[in-house]
């Protein structure tokens, strides 16, 4: 398949799913009413539903999915390891810990940007630790082991903080921070996350050439004029900004960054630079589809996004491990 066709196709898929996300919801608005409310502002209550409830949710779906797909593709390209995924290796859970700390200490209430900033800080710390532990080549074993340890540690601390909260609802929200949800998110959350995510997208988008060169090995990449230390720093900041901002508003949704790059890699000729935009679009499509599915399968019950992405992602993960073992890597 030609690269241009692939990107156009994925873009069209995202558009269709975005429209579907806007039109599906418990309020059972007709097509005409929905569009009239969204574009022309007809019907006071319907306008609130379309513009304040469904639009931010659909936008966040696109933003979060693109961020996760992009981060996964970038990390896999840098570590040259198909198992690198923000959710699996503890970046998401560390970001969740940062977000929960910001909320429970009251920092986020006095200074709104503290929420994404703290999540970003959590993500930066975890990526730094991972790169330190797993080394630049990121052998599968050390990467996964370090990721499991980080995930468990950050998850335990998140649970502890929520259990100690004076708020009786907080402890029940451990599941939100672990599995993620876009339920009842508003434009407040869109505006909180967007600047950080946009920064992350720009940073990661600049990595294409460097990641392509890295496929030849570090020495060859350095010979091609790629400054590896700089590439590494940009990667860490880009992933942290994307994942941190996403987790701060929607919890830790796993497997998107694993599944999407894996599915699209053969279609872009296994070139990491080309995989970046394709993965961003693919991630947005997958997240929108998952968010539509949670509303269709169990309306009104706030089924978590991570449940669906894990249902698709876990079998694929097992397949990857099986393949990795067979190839003796």
């Amino acid at each position, binding site marked *: 398949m030609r690269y241009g066709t692939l990107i156009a196709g994925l873009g069209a898929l995202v558009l269709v799913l975005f429209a579907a996300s806007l039109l599906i*919801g*418990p*309020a059972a*608005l007709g097509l005409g009413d929905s569009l009239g409310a969204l574009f022309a502002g007809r019907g*006071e*209550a*319907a306008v*609130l*539903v379309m513009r*304040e*409830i*469904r639009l931010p949710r659909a936008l966040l779906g696109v933003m979060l999915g693109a961020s996760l797909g992009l981060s996964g593709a970038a990390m896999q390209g840098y570590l040259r390891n198909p198992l690198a995924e923000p959710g699996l290796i503890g970046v998401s859970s560390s970001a969740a810990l940062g977000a929960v700390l910001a*909320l*429970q200490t*009251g920092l*986020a*209430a006095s200074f709104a940007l503290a929420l994404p900033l703290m999540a970003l800080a959590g993500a930066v710390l975890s990526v730094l630790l991972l790169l330190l532990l797993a080394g630049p080549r990121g052998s599968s074993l050390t990467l996964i082991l370090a990721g499991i340890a980080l995930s468990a540690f950050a998850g335990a601390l998140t649970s502890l903080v929520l259990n100690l*909260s*004076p*708020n*009786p*609802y*907080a402890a*029940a*929200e451990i599941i*939100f921070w672990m599995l993620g949800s876009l339920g*009842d998110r*508003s*434009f*407040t959350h869109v505006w909180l996350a967007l600047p950080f995510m946009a920064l992350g997208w720009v940073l990661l988008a600049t990595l294409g050439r460097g990641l392509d060169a890295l496929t030849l090995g570090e020495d060859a990449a350095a010979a091609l004029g790629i400054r590896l230390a700089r590439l590494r720093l940009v990667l860490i900041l880009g992933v942290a900004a994307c994942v941190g901002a996403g987790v701060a508003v929607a919890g830790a949704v796993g497997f998107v960054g694993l599944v999407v790059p894996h599915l699209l890699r053969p279609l872009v000729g296994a070139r990491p630079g080309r995989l970046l935009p394709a993965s961003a679009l693919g991630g947005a499509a997958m997240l929108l589809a998952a968010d539509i599915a949670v509303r269709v399968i169990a*309306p*009104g*019950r*706030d089924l978590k996004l991570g449940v669906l992405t894990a249902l698709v992602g876990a079998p694929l993960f097992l397949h990857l491990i099986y393949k990795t073992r067979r190839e003796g890597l």
Partner: protein
Amino acid sequence: MVGQSPFRRVRAVLRAVFCAVLGAATVTAAGAAPERVVSLNLCTDQLAMLLAAPGQLVSVSFLAQDPMNSAMADAARAFPANRGQAEEVFLMKPDLVLAGTYTSRAAVSMLRRLGIEVVEFPPERSLDDVRRHLRLMGQVLGQQARAEAMIADYDTRLAALRADPAHRPRAALYSANGYTTGGNTLSGEILAAAGFDNIAAEAGVPAGGALPLEVLVMLRPDLVITGARYPGASRSEALLDHPALAPLLAAVPDAPATNADWVCGTPYVLRAIEGLVAARKALEDGR
């Protein structure tokens, strides 16, 4: 459980509870008034504090001292608090323990095995249950006269408050996680007594359940009554700050919130009804 108990009085009181719950007209209280009463449940705490003689009540649950949930938090601070653990309660040497039918199941069965009499009260589900439970608590504590006086007062004040206006505004009880409460509950009856129609009926929620924000916005209630907010942050409560809800909440700026007066079936529900009646009058004036 009942059959295994060797104590006749326990059976007699349990039978009394059973009869009272079924609404039997006459119940005979068993034995003399208990002298050391320990209550493990937020609602029995408050009923007991209202009716017990000085010195008769030894301890109430820690929840009774929490102003978020207890209408009598100040009064409860005069009593040592318990956390419903069998061991701590046993050491208080009670001759009667009051519990809710859903409270501390393990502690209750342990205390029964240790030979302590336990009377269980089901949660109050209606304004009528308030009357019934006051009477039952009076019998259990041997304070029948005080209970009857309180019931008479409750009936008079409730009758005076109960409103059936020509135009009933539509209200929604909407709390954390989008939980709404329907008509067949204590909160639902409080709302109805104050002259409101409950939007949960239109949404097809008879008792309680999640009401998606979209559906609430489309139903456009005249008044949205949210829950009082707890300290600390939670995503469940953050829903109440959603911009789509803001226009509905702004309709009645100082609308009452469901607070400690709504939690238990005590005469304090009258205070909740009073607040709602005032809100309804404010709505009428603003029209």
